[in-house]
């Protein structure tokens, strides 16, 4: 983001430059409006400047863009001829060329740092939120915001031994910054020091040690180009971001450094008096060379999807100060202005052509492309679940993937258990959002509880999302599993309309829903007891399919999970299921039975021991004859009068033959057979 002053911009674009007009041009060229504010007789406007365009972080740069848009000559920094002799410069400066692309300096003696700063400078800096310090510092800042080169000034009298070193610090040192705060410089940070102490953290901030104060007489003025990455790393570590570091990180035009310095020096002498000492200092290890990039008009047209001729392309680029020379019918040799640090390759120029030609002028063309469509199995499995659970009344939720650090403790899951995890985020926003969840139970239970806390009671909820486990066999070191969780509690059907009491969710509803979901994939499964301690005793089961565990199911042990906020508000039993989506390998189910003869249904009310499962009873009944089509449990209940290890189970048996209509005699024969077996095997009797 860059904030500019309208009055300042008018120095370049003319006093009458229209604000709305300026804004429109900037927007068209990709610099989005980000708010404005009226300050006295000025308008301060923020525009979005992306990382590739540091040349738009100062007024002259913005003026260039506007002028170019209008096809007018763009403003340039006025060139200053000044004697340079590094040997004879009053301060001996040693530079590590690997960290500093250019270092320019000049001495001004006899300045009055407490001179009055002209109002327009003060007002403009204030309008942009930059505090006035003293004349020298203010003029340095003004230069930076005007023409883009950060400037630093040292009090020459405080430089011990008339020498400066620009290099990486070789030890950790505490410094006090210009603004009075303490920071720690680490070995490797680029600093400017005189051997006694650090005078400046390169490109970021000056220290108090050689700061220009009101009583300063002689100054060394510096304009340099420091290594972008070093500035960025140090600035981030120190948590100090200054207008200067912001610009160095993105890049500063090294061709303008010396001129910018001399412009600034002249302005200082004009306002603060003093004399610019000859010679100046300029160290630039790599010679300045004009950058060239070849652009093929064919490539440009192909990528943009237009058909411009070479002349039009050249005209576009010339408007924006790119010098162009046709090489042949197609190729153009383009020389890049030194301030356009972002243009390095042909594609960068193609972007410029598109931008200058105007995105609005590029006509949309539907592509003709043939690719084969690949169905995403996990994704379509999710859609099936969504449809099924949604149809059953479950509301879809999306919860944070990170859960409290102590979740494993709350759920009493031990290291070594299959759903244990300690995969945490190093920089979480809070402890409550730090563990990458290895199960969805925490998320869905706290979501259920949250809903109860705002009076959304009697709920069935689900989520489709991921769980995460450490696993070295993946390149990320993490196995991510697409998972579905569902939870329900409270009343399923409220009383009224024929029901004389509330019908609540039961454990058997949970099994019912699980079976419906599995059936929607044609997925067979069985249940095996598990030992998860967050389930009520005897209610936890693993879901096994194709010989593999694909999930778990049970009644939540609420007293154990009391640490989940608001869970105590849920008074009814909570039923929970979680399963892994990618493991569902659905089969197409076939129609296996068809008969033109009518089925016959009979009900049997048995007293049976609790440890005898319905499945076992079904197997016996089915084994007695192949006309037994179905055995369905219609009800199950207990009574005070029953012995404790027994309950009553009502079965409906469906008989049907493919050959003929069954007679009662036939059925009675079958009945007699399985009743005897059930009695001898399990002691099952009719309920009296």
């Amino acid at each position, binding site marked *: 983001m860059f904030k500019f002053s309208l009055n300042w911009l008018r120095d370049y674009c003319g006093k009458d430059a229209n604000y709305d007009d300026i804004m429109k041009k900037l927007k068209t060229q*990709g610099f989005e409006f980000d708010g404005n504010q009226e300050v006295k007789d000025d308008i301060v406007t923020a525009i979005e400047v*992306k*990382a590739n*365009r540091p040349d738009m972080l100062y007024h002259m740069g913005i003026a260039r863009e506007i002028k170019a848009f209008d096809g007018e000559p763009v403003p340039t920094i006025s060139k200053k001829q000044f004697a340079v002799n590094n040997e004879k410069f009053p301060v001996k400066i040693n530079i590590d060329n690997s960290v500093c692309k250019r270092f320019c300096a000049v001495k001004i003696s006899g300045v009055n740092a407490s001179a009055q700063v002209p109002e327009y400078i003060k007002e403009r800096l204030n309008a942009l939120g930059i505090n006035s310090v003293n004349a020298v510092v203010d003029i340095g800042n003004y230069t930076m915001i005007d023409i883009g080169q950060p400037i630093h000034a040292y009090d020459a009298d405080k430089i011990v031994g008339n020498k400066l070193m620009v290099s990486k610090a070789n030890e950790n040192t505490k410094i006090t910054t210009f603004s009075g705060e303490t920071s720690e410089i680490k070995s490797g940070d680029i600093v400017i020091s005189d051997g006694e102490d650090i005078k400046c953290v390169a490109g970021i901030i000056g220290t108090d040690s050689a700061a220009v104060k009101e009583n300063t007489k002689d100054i060394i003025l510096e304009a340099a180009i420091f290594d972008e990455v070093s500035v*960025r790393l140090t600035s981030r570590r120190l948590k100090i971001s200054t207008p200067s570091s912001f610009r160095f990180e*993105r890049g500063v035009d090294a061709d303008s450094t010396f001129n910018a310095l001399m412009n600034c020096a002249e302005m200082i002498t004009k306002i603060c008096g003093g004399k610019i000492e000859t010679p100046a200092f300029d160290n630039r290890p790599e010679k300045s060379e004009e950058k060239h990039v070849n652009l093929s008009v064919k490539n440009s047209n192909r*990528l*943009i*999807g237009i058909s411009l001729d070479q002349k039009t392309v050249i005209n576009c680029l010339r408007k924006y100060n790119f010098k162009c020379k046709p090489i042949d019918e197609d190729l153009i040799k383009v020389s890049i202005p030194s301030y356009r640090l972002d243009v390095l390759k042909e*594609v*960068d120029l193609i*972007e410029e052509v*598109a*931008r200058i030609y105007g*995105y*609005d002028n*590029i*006509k*949309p*063309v*539907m*592509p003709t*492309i043939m*690719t084969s*469509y*690949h169905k*995403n199995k*996990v*994704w379509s499995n999710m859609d099936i679940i969504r449809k099924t*659970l*949604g*149809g*059953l*009344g479950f*509301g*879809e*939720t*999306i919860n*944070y*993937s990170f859960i409290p650090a102590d979740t494993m403790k709350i759920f009493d899951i031990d290291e070594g258990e299959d759903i244990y995890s300690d995969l*945490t*985020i*190093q*920089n979480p*926003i809070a402890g409550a*959002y730090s563990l990458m969840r290895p199960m969805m139970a925490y998320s869905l239970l706290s979501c259920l509880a*949250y*809903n109860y806390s*705002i009076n*959304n009671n009697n709920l069935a*909820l*689900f989520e489709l999302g*991921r769980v*995460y486990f450490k696993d070295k066999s*993946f390149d*990320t*070191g*993490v196995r991510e599993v697409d998972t579905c969780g569902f939870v329900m509690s409270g009343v399923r059907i409220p009383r*009224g*309309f024929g029901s004389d009491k509330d019908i609540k969710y039961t454990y058997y509803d949970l099994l019912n829903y699980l079976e419906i979901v599995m059936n929607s994939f044609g997925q067979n499964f069985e249940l095996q007891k598990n030992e998860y301690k967050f389930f009520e005793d005897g209610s936890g089961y693993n879901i096994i399919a194709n010989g593999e565990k694909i999930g778990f199911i049970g009644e939540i042990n609420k007293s154990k999970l009391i640490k989940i906020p608001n869970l105590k508000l849920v008074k009814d039993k909570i039923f929970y299921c979680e399963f892994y989506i990618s493991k569902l390998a659905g089969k197409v189910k076939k129609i296996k039975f068809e008969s033109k003869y009518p089925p016959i249904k009979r009900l049997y009310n048995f007293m049976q021991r609790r440890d005898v499962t319905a499945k076992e009873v079904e197997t016996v009944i089915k084994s007695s004859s192949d006309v037994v089509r179905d055995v369905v449990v219609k009800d199950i209940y207990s009574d005070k009068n029953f012995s404790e290890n027994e309950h009553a189970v009502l079965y409906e048996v469906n008989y049907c033959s493919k050959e003929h209509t069954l007679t009662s005699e036939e059925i009675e024969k079958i009945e007699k057979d399985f009743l005897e077996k059930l009695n001898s095997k399990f002691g099952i009797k009719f309920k009296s």
Partner: protein
Amino acid sequence: MDKLQEIESKKASLIEKLKKVTSAKEISEIKSEYLKKYVKSLYSELKNLSAEEKKSFGKTINDFKNFAEEKISEAESKFKAQKSSAKYDVTIFKDNIKIGAEHPLIKLYKRIEEVFVGMGFSVVQGPEIELDKYNFEMLNMPSHHPARDMQDTFYISAPNVLLRSHTSSVQIRAMEKMQPPIQIISPGTVYRVDDIDPQHTPMFYQIEGLMVAENISFANLKAVLTRFLKEVFGEEVGVKFRPSYYPYTEPSAAIDMSCTKCGGKGCRTCKGTGWITVAGSGMVHPNVLEGVGYDSKKYTGFAFGLGLNRFALTYYDLDEIRKLYENDISLWNQI
């Protein structure tokens, strides 16, 4: 004859009463008053009359009886007809059979997915916990690139393993596996460090897309994405492309759509501009194509990405972005 006059006035009063009747009970009361009690009292008069008079008065009684029966049954049938037309109260909608609420992000996403799948895009997924390589480096964002600032990242183990800050990483993995022509969308959850407050969450839902083949152009990008926005938000929406910058595309374009809330007149949602930025897009940078082993001279392509959360807010009139992850089911039930 007083009696005859009395009978006439009884007839009149019967008609009056039947007009005012409002329930079956009242009709049966009228029935007993006129057809039982009164007719009985008339018959009891007969014994005092001569044979001649008896004959004529008997006829009068019968006439009255017929008259009363006819009128009462008329009223009864009218009343019955009324009753049967109100057999059910169709203004009652009981709510004990429920369909599950849809999550707004998913609901909106599905509308978008439908359009892209219709255009031949396949849906691909990838890890949420990613390597720096896929999330940044191969997207032309080497370490210390200032563009990384835009995406403050969660780390599992810095600097290499992180929570993906966009689903572009999925596209890199897909390109490594597939050869052009390809057409994919990669939807999913992405993460950026942000505290939870009404307008911020550290997690959001993103959908990105990619088309790479020979001669795919910026003009194609404009056509596909304009079609998408018009399919989802209506033919009437305006769509604008303006220059922008993403390290992994060049040329890059931000996509603005006329504000769906005010229709482009300017409101709070669009900060008075009439436009809202809905997506980022651009031509895949040659560095990215070369990085996955494609010949960037032969193949070109475009990529785009959009976050759904802010979208869902305007789309469903939700006021706070964090509510998307609070899952207040009473809100989801309304959409």
